[in-house]
């Protein structure tokens, strides 16, 4: 994403802002209405566990389909063809890890956060502190990427040119997001996700049908049109390798990315927290089924959107447009439906950033209030009311940090932040979650080694990778302190975290047999699990 000034030609900024403002007003009204029942900690963090499986499934897809998937993948397919499609497959298959191994067991065992599950049969304070650290790290990287992306999107869609004006828009996005979280808690945030997901999926479906209709619903003709439009190198769009096939290192980098994508999803804290908003494990299962259906469908749409943008707008025009690759889907909308459709798609893209950022903020604030404040600082001796108060204050602090970070990172190449978030989730969180749920012998030291070890290795490898220094596309230009050749550390950091978790465990004698028996029975049967709140 770039910060080149001037909006897309033919775009009407007032119309775009108008449609977006309408979305904000409607969702704020709904958030206000939803907030009337938000009283207890369970209401604030887990929406009273009263959402149905399908509702939560739609909200999960809303959380998951960030602006990066919508604008980024469509753009990647338009420019790089098949290699863009590879991302969406990793993002989708990843949900099977969540479905088969994590969602239901986590719902049955925990209450509000990932720390609840990881600390269940361990020493509470150190494990909760570790779980909160990695939750905050993942959320922060993800949040920064979304906020910085908002700046670029503003340049693209509203024609806001000056750095100051973009900073104002980032701040406005941040303030609206804080309002959602403070007023509505998890219930309000979930409704925002549901509305946004519905708009996004219906919008993508409409454009997909429109594009296919232009080619008599023959996908092969659409591909041919994309190839023709791209000129000489057109044929390479159809097969893999355009983006990652250049060298041995880039191929290995892609393999590493593929592993992090498939194992990262089930360790993303804001995804995990969504499983607590339903009343039973069976509903958690149904939510994942809905999420898999909607996310899969959406990625099939992006395949058509991407090649459609390639065929109707053309890769050269996309690359030259403000916003570069990310402008593929908006430009396609403009080409098809004029300024009105562009306005709608722009508003949906904004809504996407807003909703994802709200989901991340509530997760990070819940983890801080529930794991760090209530259990580490107050040693479990606090009232739910004061815990929620801390969570609300934390949400404001995180919101302000996100606004500041987003303004500073505006215009930077931030794609690596999302990769970093997935790599940390796959390295620090997933091994620890799987060991906790399935390995009897696992203990406190093992959990600490896999979380802190996975986190540290991932961050160090990224800092010394070509994503940060040493290349023309790096974040810090003109410096070269990279010694790790890959931009995606997953291939090293994920196995390392699994090994550390095992090693830490066998080197410590601590083991709570009774607690393990209780945890296993709870996780598999749902006995004693938190019930829905009836208002």
């Amino acid at each position, binding site marked *: 994403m770039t910060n080149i000034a001037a909006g897309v030609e033919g775009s009407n900024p007032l119309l775009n802002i108008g449609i977006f403002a309408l979305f904000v007003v409607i969702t704020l009204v709904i958030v206000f209405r939803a907030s009337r029942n938000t009283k207890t900690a369970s209401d604030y963090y887990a929406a009273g566990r009263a959402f149905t499986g399908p509702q939560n499934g739609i909200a999960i897809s809303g959380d998951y389909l960030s602006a990066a998937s919508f604008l980024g993948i469509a753009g990647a397919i338009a420019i790089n063809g098949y290699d863009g499609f590879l991302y969406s497959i990793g993002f989708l298959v990843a949900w099977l890890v969540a479905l088969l*191994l994590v969602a239901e067991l986590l719902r049955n065992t925990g209450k509000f956060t990932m720390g609840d599950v990881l600390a269940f049969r361990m020493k509470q304070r150190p494990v909760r502190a570790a779980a909160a650290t990695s939750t905050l790290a993942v959320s922060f990287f993800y949040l920064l990427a979304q906020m910085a992306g908002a700046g670029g999107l503003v340049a693209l869609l509203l024609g806001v040119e000056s750095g100051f004006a973009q900073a104002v828009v980032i701040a406005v996005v941040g303030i609206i997001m804080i309002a959602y979280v403070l007023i509505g808690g998890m219930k309000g945030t979930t409704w925002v996700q549901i509305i946004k997901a519905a708009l996004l999926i219906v919008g993508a479906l409409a454009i997909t049908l429109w594009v296919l209709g232009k080619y008599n619903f023959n996908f092969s003709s659409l591909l041919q049109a994309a190839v023709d439009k791209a000129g000489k190198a057109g044929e390479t769009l159809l097969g*893999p390798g355009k983006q990652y096939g250049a060298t041995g290192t880039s191929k290995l980098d892609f393999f590493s990315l593929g592993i992090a994508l498939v194992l990262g999803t089930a360790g993303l804290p804001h995804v995990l927290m969504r499983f607590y908003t339903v009343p039973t494990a069976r509903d958690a299962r149904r939510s994942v089924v809905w999420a898999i259906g909607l996310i899969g469908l959406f990625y099939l749409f992006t395949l058509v959107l991407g090649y459609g943008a390639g065929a109707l707008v053309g890769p050269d025009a996309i690359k030259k447009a403000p916003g570069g690759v990310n402008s593929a889907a908006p430009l396609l909308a403009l080409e098809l439906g004029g300024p009105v459709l562009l306005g709608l798609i722009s508003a949906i893209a904004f809504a996407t950033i807003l909703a994802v950022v709200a989901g991340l903020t509530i997760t990070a604030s819940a983890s801080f209030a529930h794991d760090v404040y209530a259990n580490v600082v107050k040693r479990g001796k606090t009232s739910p009311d004061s815990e929620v108060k801390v969570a609300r204050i934390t949400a404001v602090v995180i919101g302000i940090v996100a606004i500041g970070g987003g303004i500073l990172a505006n215009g930077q190449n931030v794609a690596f932040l999302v990769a970093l978030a997935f790599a940390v989730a796959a390295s620090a969180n997933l091994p620890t979650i799987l060991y906790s749920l399935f390995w009897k012998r696992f203990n406190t030291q093992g959990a600490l080694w896999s979380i802190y070890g996975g986190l540290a290795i991932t961050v160090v490898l990224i800092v010394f990778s070509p994503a940060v220094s040493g290349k023309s596309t790096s974040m810090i230009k003109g410096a070269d302190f990279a010694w790790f050749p890959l931009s995606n550390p997953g291939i090293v950091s994920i196995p390392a975290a699994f090994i550390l978790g095992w090693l830490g465990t066998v080197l410590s004698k601590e083991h709570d047999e009774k607690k393990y028996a209780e945890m296993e*029975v709870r996780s*598999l049967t749902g006995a004693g699990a938190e019930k829905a709140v009836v208002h």
Partner: protein
Amino acid sequence: MSTTDTGGGPPDTSETIWERAHESTEFRELRSRLRRFVFPMTAVFLVWYLLYVLLADYAHGFMSTKVFGNINVGLIFGLLQFVSTFVITGLYVRYANRKLDPVAEKIREDIEGDSAKEQA
């Protein structure tokens, strides 16, 4: 209510309930049914996915082979990943509804009934 409380009544009596349930043949059966399905299935979809990623990464020629029109092997392989994801999801839901839920429900009712009795 303290926030570390995991529910389920006084710890000394409830822990024996958990351990009793943990040792029961029903629970062992439930655990083995779950693991018998999810572990092999996870291995299957991970191997299938990694095979796809490796082919897309290292076998460009093969993946670019056209099958009909502009539809090549790579695209079909990619779409098959979607199909396999949907199929595995469906298989798991069917298995869980038939083989896991009834057993889990029975054990849960026993535990929650027992703990209510012991507390009374």
